[in-house]
């Protein structure tokens, strides 16, 4: 029972990463937008939702005690809004500006989380974030199981939404822009607008993931949203298969499993005074895994499949030889 409860806990965390990974897949896998500030978008979602839903606290502004669902929605709005602003500023320019800007924003946001104590609790972070099904917290199995189901439902909803969009005329126009921007433009598609939309959608999904994660764990701190998180999510998408939504989910679970297992192994094998240093072995292991995947299956475990718009069923060809 305890093991099952732990498995549910582990999977729930992995699935929150799957949501981030789906967000990155819209931006990079489907659109080719290089976001190196993922942790910033995730952290923004976590902090916005926490500020709105925690009970009032004397030492900081915020704490509106609002329902969790509202916190999630606000997180999406904040992440989408930030991505929209970044997109409007940079997506008309050369693509490397986007990378620089997202990196800068993630660093800046991390500093804000760290230093605006009256809003974010500073280095200590925020606690008492309401957890879904908190009435059941005493029964680890039921509590973790229900949270797993809820997080899985969010993953499924994101997955279905993205697959629907991929096969819509919007997804078709996005693919056209990626395949040949000049031709797409000559046929009336607006590349900048489509990219901004895809980037904002991805940003909203990442922020939602941050909120879901924060509410499941119950507390957040600035140290959760370091560039390491961005690296992990990129590793997940590359391993799973960039451009493939199922690959994004699979990659998140796999890489998180390896991350968690190697972490557990290190704490078993190394003496306590060596563990802080040994922890960097985890990064090495993920790095090695990335290299193996890139050599063995450069497209990831589940490569991108050619998706075709809905409504374009095959024509009856029985007349032709």
């Amino acid at each position: 029972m305890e093991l099952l409860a732990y498995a549910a806990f582990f999977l729930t965390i992995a699935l929150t990463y799957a949501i981030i990974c789906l967000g990155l897949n819209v931006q990079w896998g489907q659109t080719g937008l290089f976001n190196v500030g993922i942790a910033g978008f995730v952290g923004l979602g976590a902090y916005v939702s926490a500020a709105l839903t925690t009970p009032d606290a004397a030492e900081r502004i915020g704490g509106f005690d609002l329902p969790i669902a509202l916190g999630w929605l606000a997180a999406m709005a904040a992440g989408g809004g930030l991505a929209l602003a970044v997109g409007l500023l940079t997506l008309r320019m050369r693509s490397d500006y986007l990378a620089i800007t997202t990196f800068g924003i993630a660093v800046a946001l991390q500093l804000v989380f760290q230093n605006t104590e009256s809003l974010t609790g500073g280095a200590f972070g925020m606690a008492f974030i309401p957890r879904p099904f908190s009435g059941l917290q005493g029964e680890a199995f039921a509590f973790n199981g229900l949270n797993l189901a809820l997080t899985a439902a969010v993953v499924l909803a994101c997955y279905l939404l993205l697959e629907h969009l991929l096969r819509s005329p919007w997804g078709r126009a996005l693919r056209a822009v990626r395949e040949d921007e000049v031709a797409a433009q000559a046929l009336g598609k607006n590349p900048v607008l489509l990219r901004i939309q895809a980037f904002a959608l991805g940003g909203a999904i990442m922020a939602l993931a941050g909120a879901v994660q924060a509410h499941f764990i119950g507390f957040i701190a600035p140290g959760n949203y370091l560039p390491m998180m961005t690296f992990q999510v990129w590793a997940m998408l590359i391993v799973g298969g960039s451009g493939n939504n199922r690959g994004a989910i699979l990659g998140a679970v796999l890489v998180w499993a390896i991350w968690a297992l190697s972490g557990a192994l290190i704490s078993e094998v190394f003496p306590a005074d060596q563990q802080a240093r040994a922890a960097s072995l985890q990064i090495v292991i993920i790095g090695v895994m990335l290299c193996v995947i890139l050599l063995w299956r450069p497209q990831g475990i589940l490569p991108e499949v050619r998706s075709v718009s809905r409504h374009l069923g095959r024509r009856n060809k029985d007349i032709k030889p």
Partner: protein
Amino acid sequence: MTGSSQPPILKARGITKSFGGFRAVNDISLDLAASEILGVIGPNGAGKSTLFNLLAGALPVDAGSIHLAGKDLTKARPEARILSGLGRTFQIPRPFPRMTVLENVMTAAQNQLGEGLFSALIAPRQVAAQERTNVVRARDILDFVSLSHLEDQPAAVLSGGQRKLLELARVLMAEPKLILLDEPAAGVNPALLDLIIDRIHAINKLGIAILLIEHNMEMIARLCPRVIVMAAGKSLAEGAPEEVTRRADVIDVYLEGMPA
């Protein structure tokens, strides 16, 4: 100038473009009647494709103005020009290689409801209805250019000539009033050439004006009552093809382009 009493569909005045210090297009003016096919000929490097890029909005003009059916498109983005009815094909075809032939054509439809991120989500019925109408039209167009049997293939498998036909199909899907055709017969095998000539004729019969860049003089003679000759960015001569090709200055610029 147009030899026709209709008001011009395309009115271009003083179109000029330089790359660095090099004048690729120098003060070109055109009037094109609504049902006309106008040929644009001239040696390689004369500035013909650049002129198309300027008319279609892929490049901004340095000077001059462009009006389509009375509407000023001089500063419009390429997306706005095709929406207003000014379509173009590329000298080197630019298919979406990993999309199917049918999807390539579907992409070109204008005013697609489902291309809006929100309407794609909140109005699935209306989007589906529009897709069904568009797919019927896309298949008619594929029949018209004889590519129906390839509709489910990725465009990457098409031959050079088939790619030219796909360019034509895509631009037709946008329901243009004027099509700029850049060397639709270049590199096409002779069997397809007749088909392409015939289809261009048929398109023009539908009332679509055509501006045609072509080196194949047989094709020019069969399709264009009138041509302009471009050389070194300028308009050198204008008139019936059999007349201008007899002019000494036109023969000279063609001979200059030949290896000694």
